[in-house]
C-alpha cells in the first residue's frame, strides 16, 4: 500500500500531502523535509525509485511539480508510477490543462480527486470518467446549496 503521497515544487514547497499511515505531525514534518531534500538533490537522469528506510520512494516530475509516493517493499514501483500518472490525468481532466496554480488555489479539489481515486493507500476507482464525474456531481451539489442559501427570501 501507499504510505503517503507528497507534491512539491522545485523550490521544495509542499503543495499537497496525503498520509495513509498515522504519524505525529512532528514526524511528518521531518519526513517531508528529508524526502524533499533527497529527491530535489537527485540528478534528472537518475532512477525514479529510491530505497528509503524500509519503504521505497517512487517519484516523477511533471513540469515544475514533483509527485512522490512512498510504498512498501512488496509493492510494484512501475504500478505506482502509473498510479501517479493516473492522478495527474484526473487532475488534468478536471481542471483542463492543470498547472501548479490549480493546486494552489483549488487545493481542496485536488484532495477530493485524490480521495475518489485512492483510499487507504490503495486504488479504489480505476475509471477516469467515474472519478471526475463524482467530483463534478459534488460541485453541482455545492453550487445548488450555495444558491439556495443565497436566496434573498431565505
Amino acid at each position, binding site marked *: 500500500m501507499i504510505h503517503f503521497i507528497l507534491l512539491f*515544487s522545485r523550490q521544495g514547497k509542499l503543495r499537497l500531502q496525503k498520509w495513509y499511515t498515522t504519524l505525529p505531525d512532528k514526524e511528518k514534518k521531518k519526513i517531508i523535509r528529508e524526502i524533499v531534500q533527497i529527491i530535489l538533490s537527485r540528478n534528472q537522469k537518475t532512477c525514479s525509485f529510491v530505497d528509503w528506510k524500509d519503504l521505497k520512494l517512487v517519484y516523477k516530475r511533471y513540469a515544475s511539480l514533483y509527485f512522490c509516493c512512498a510504498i512498501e517493499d512488496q509493492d510494484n514501483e512501475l504500478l505506482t508510477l502509473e498510479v501517479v500518472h493516473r492522478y495527474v490525468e484526473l487532475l488534468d481532466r478536471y481542471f*483542463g490543462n492543470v*498547472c501548479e496554480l490549480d493546486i494552489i488555489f483549488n487545493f481542496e479539489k485536488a484532495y477530493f480527486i485524490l480521495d475518489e481515486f485512492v483510499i487507504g493507500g490503495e486504488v479504489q476507482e480505476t475509471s477516469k470518467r467515474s472519478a471526475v464525474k463524482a467530483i463534478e456531481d459534488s460541485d453541482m451539489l455545492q453550487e445548488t446549496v450555495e*444558491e439556495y442559501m443565497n436566496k*434573498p427570501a431565505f
Partner: protein
Amino acid sequence: MAAAALAPSNGTRWPDRTIRVAAGGTATPSGGRARSPARSSLPSLEGLGRSPPPPPQLGGSGGAGRGAAAGAMAAAGPFALVTSCAAGFAAEELVKRIIGRDDLTVGAATRGQVNFYPWTIDNKYYSADIHLCVVPNTFLVTGDIAESVQAFVVYFDSTIKSGLDSVSEWLPLTEEWLPEVMILVCNRVSENGVNRQKAQEWCIKHGFELVELSPEELPDEDDDFPESTGVKRIVQALNANVWSNVVMKSDRTQGFGLLSTLAGANHSVGSEENQDRESKPSAADREESHLDSREDGASTNDLQTDNTVDPLLDVDIQELASLTTGDGDLENLERLLSKLKEMKDKAAALPHEQRKLHAEKVAKAFWMAIGGDRDEIEGLSSDEEN
C-alpha cells in the same frame, strides 16, 4: 501555439503553457479560464448564454496604466527583490526579461540607488500589482523594503569558483524575511566555476530554486510535461505565489467540466440575478423567490421565464435538434452551424436570464445534434427539477 501541437495522444501534459508572458509584459493565462475538450467543442454557444469571459489583459493599456499610477505614488509593496551578484550582469537585464519589455521607464521609480519597476501579474486565478525592486547590495535595503519583500531573485556568476560567496551575503536577510519565492539565477552552471551539483546543493540547503537562463540541455521535447527553464520559469514561479495584495478573480463558480458548461447556463443565473435584485428589490421578485425556495431552491425562476420565451426560438431549437437525423454529412453540418449562428443572433436580443435558459436548451440540442450521448445531459437541466 507550438506547445499545443506537441500535446500527446493521452491528452495530459503538465502545461506550463497556461502562463505566458504577453507582449505588454503581463503574464496571462492562454485560455483565460480552464477549458475542457467538451467546452471547446461548443465555442459558439458561449456568447449565447454566458457572458464571455473577460478578455485576458494583454498588458499595454491595463497593465502599464495601473503600474504607472502605482509608480507615481512612490512604489509600494509587495516587492520581488531582484539583485545581481555578478560584476558583468545588471539586474535590470533580468527585470527586462521578466517584464518582457525593453523600455523600463514606464512607471519606474527610484529611491536612492534602489529602482522600482511596476509589474502586474495576471493569471487565471488572480491579478496582483507588484514591483520588481532592484537593490544593488545589501546595504541599500531599507526597512520598508525589507517589510514588503515576498520574492527574492538573485543572479550570480557561475563561471568563477567564488560565484556563490557574494550571494551568501544576502542569506542573513533572506533567512529573516523568509520570502515565499527564492530563486538563484545564473546563465549556465559551469564545470570550471560553480557546477550543477554545487549550485543544487546550495539551493537545497538554503531553500532556493536554481534557474539557468540558458541551460545546456533544453527540456526533452518528447516529455509530456516538459520542465520550463530560463526566464519563463522565473515568471512561472513568481506566478505560483499568493501575493499579499492579490485580487482574486471572482469567478468562484467557474466550473471545469462539461457538466458545468451546460448546467452553468442554468446555475450561474442565481448570483447575477441576486445582484440585479439588490439594486431594485421589488415585492414581486421576493414573492417569486419565496416560492422557489419552497419548491427546490435551485432555479424555478427559470420555469416562469421559460414560459415567456419567444415560442419562435423553441421552434428553432426543435429544428436544430432535427438536423441531427442526417448521418453527419457536410451539408448537414453547414446547416447546423448557420442555424446556430442565426439563433445566437436572435437570442442576443433577449433579456439576460432568458438568454441563459435559451443557451442551455441550444447547448443540449446541439449536443444531441452532434451525436452526443443523451445520458450525458439528462438530469442536468432545470426541467428535471421542475
